[in-house]
């Protein structure tokens, strides 16, 4: 596939406060190639959304973005400011959010908002920008785009608004599309329409997609590779197929096994496997493995130092000292047939 579209090396997000900084994203590294969807999956507070925001420089003080490099198409964009950062956003990298109504401006028509995104980066006539807005609406499968272009956001349903957000994101043909929980606020029948649309755009234009989600079903059907985050760190990264077939990290196994559905054997309900306890708070992050307090395979060594990422297969990695033990354990066997 050649050089990745995005190459992130050692990205951290810290929040300064009295008594020392809190680390919300801790030394994250990953690549995304053209035409590939990388999913970042994890539970609330794991740092997945913050990772997405950090890529676009959208972390405000007291937050700080640090790292060795964040390369977009070979060029380091880490630490860009002002005009250089503005030229990047909405142009080479675009982002769509969970709640399109809060991201859209309620007093502008959707056409004006798409035109704004185009003319912010390209010196073209208003009429040409308007024509492009209509064809973008058509591309995100909004029926009757010539009429719809004059609608205000409140005229549209949640699913249509998210289509408009995608149209705005595509306005300048970005190399990377960051989608942060793009369907979490939508009904399930609309969710599948939006995810199919994103998938189609990826296949047509070779856009690289970073998909932030908490839903392993979405991961399964719409990503090529998965990065599992826990407490600000990468704990496992695999191809989607490998991760779901043979999850290695105890947290990944726990996530898959905790999903309800298909838990009836001969008409009798079997107990869901729980992950005991809670995610540690940022202020009380342990020195060693962040998952140690909830892990059934924990040994003393896990609590002493942060487990290093061990390569698995061709391009996978897992940060766990106890993979062999976890693998051997029938108890933790994941139920991959659940949905």
């Amino acid at each position, binding site marked *: 596939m050649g050089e990745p579209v995005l190459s992130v090396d050692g990205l951290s997000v810290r929040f300064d406060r009295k008594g020392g900084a809190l680390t919300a994203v801790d030394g994250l590294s990953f690549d995304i190639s053209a035409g590939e969807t990388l999913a970042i999956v994890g539970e609330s507070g794991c740092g997945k959304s913050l990772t997405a925001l950090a890529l676009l420089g959208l972390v405000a003080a007291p937050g700080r973005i640090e790292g060795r490099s964040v390369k977009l198409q070979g060029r380091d964009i880490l630490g860009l400011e002002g005009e250089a950062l503005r030229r990047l956003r909405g142009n080479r990298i675009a982002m769509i959010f969970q709640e399109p109504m809060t991201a859209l401006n309620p007093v502008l028509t959707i056409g004006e908002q798409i035109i704004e995104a185009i003319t912010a980066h390209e010196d073209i006539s208003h009429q040409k920008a308007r024509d492009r807005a209509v064809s973008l609406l058509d591309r995100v499968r909004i029926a009757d785009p010539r009429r719809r272009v004059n609608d205000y956001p409140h005229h549209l349903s949640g699913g249509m608004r998210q289509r408009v957000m995608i149209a705005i994101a595509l306005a300048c043909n970005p190399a990377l599309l960051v989608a942060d929980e793009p369907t979490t606020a939508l009904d*399930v029948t609309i969710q599948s*329409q939006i995810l199919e649309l994103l998938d189609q755009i990826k296949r047509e234009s070779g856009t690289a997609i970073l998909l932030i989600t908490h839903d392993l079903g979405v991961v*399964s059907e719409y990503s090529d590779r998965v990065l599992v985050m826990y407490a600000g760190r990468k704990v496992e990264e695999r191809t989607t197929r490998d991760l779901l077939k043979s999850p290695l990290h105890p947290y990944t196994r726990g996530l898959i096994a905790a*999903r309800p559905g298909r838990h009836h054997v001969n008409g*009798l*309900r079997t*107990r869901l496997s729980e992950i005991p306890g809670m995610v540690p708070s940022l202020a009380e992050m342990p020195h060693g493995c962040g998952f140690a307090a909830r892990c059934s395979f924990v040994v003393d060594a896990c609590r002493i130092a942060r487990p290093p990422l061990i390569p698995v297969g061709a391009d996978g990695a897992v940060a766990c000292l106890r993979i062999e033990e976890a693998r051997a354990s029938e108890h933790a066997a994941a139920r991959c047939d659940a*949905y």
Partner: protein
Amino acid sequence: MHQNTQPLVATHIEPLLTVNDLVVRFDSSRGTVHAVDGVSLSIKPGETLGLVGESGCGKSTLGRAIARLVEPQSGSVRLGGVDLTRLTRSGMRPYRRDIQVVFQDPLASLDPRCTVGMLIGEPLRIHGIGDRRQRRDRIADLLSKVGLSADSADRYPHQFSGGQRQRIGIARALALDPRLIILDEPVSALDVSVQAQILNLLVDLQSKLGVAYLFISHDLSVVEYVSDRVAVMYLGRIVETSTREKLWSSPAHPYTRALFDSIPRIDTGDLGRRRHMVQGDLPSAYNPPEGCHFHTRCPRAEEFCAVESPILRTVADSHVAACHFA
């Protein structure tokens, strides 16, 4: 791990709750919404009925109307033979004990200045149950039932995580030994690992206490896990009701099939599955389509579906569906 937690529900038992042709309308400047449009259902003692549907289908309003938190325009809600809709406010009071409600974030609607002990004890105080000391013992007992430590009683809601807050909401609902708990999206705001803890707790409590649940959710996999029977709602109407096994093995209504088809699955044997998507948006509840509400999005629809509303009819034993083709 494979322990049996299924409550035994005998088929010949009289229903605990019977809802018949219930209608709830809301008038606004934009018109009238038929939030609940002639719904009938029943729940047996100790049974879980799952109620599933997309946003705006009326499932929460139906739950609230059963608890009489909103007033229905017509129809009946019978609890053990008494029609609750005919009772006055004060006449309703003794029956409020029997039906309790747990919301998505139960503490969002409660006074943040009250301790958890006060919040759980409030229903006992209102219904004049026990003296101060007995109530304190009862609060400790309820906290332990839902897996919280006794010292939680002296803390405030904001000091608890989402999962713990839901445990507190469940403890409060259990305080009066209800016969039916209406659970309105009780795990929707929780992460999957915590969601599993709460679902296991609900199942355990039901098998210990014999309480019936109306479990309202948009999440089919959660509904499948907890339910004995399931009702599917679309734009104010129930389109299909069946046992869990039958609904999942042979859904009869095209909308139910579309819902099942829309869920992204973890299916390692079938990666790259591309499904039959439902086209279009949910129609406005102010102006639902004539005839079968689903005909505008239905792959099977024919001309007369736009004219004639299908009624619920039996398609198999304990399985009804409202579709001309079912």
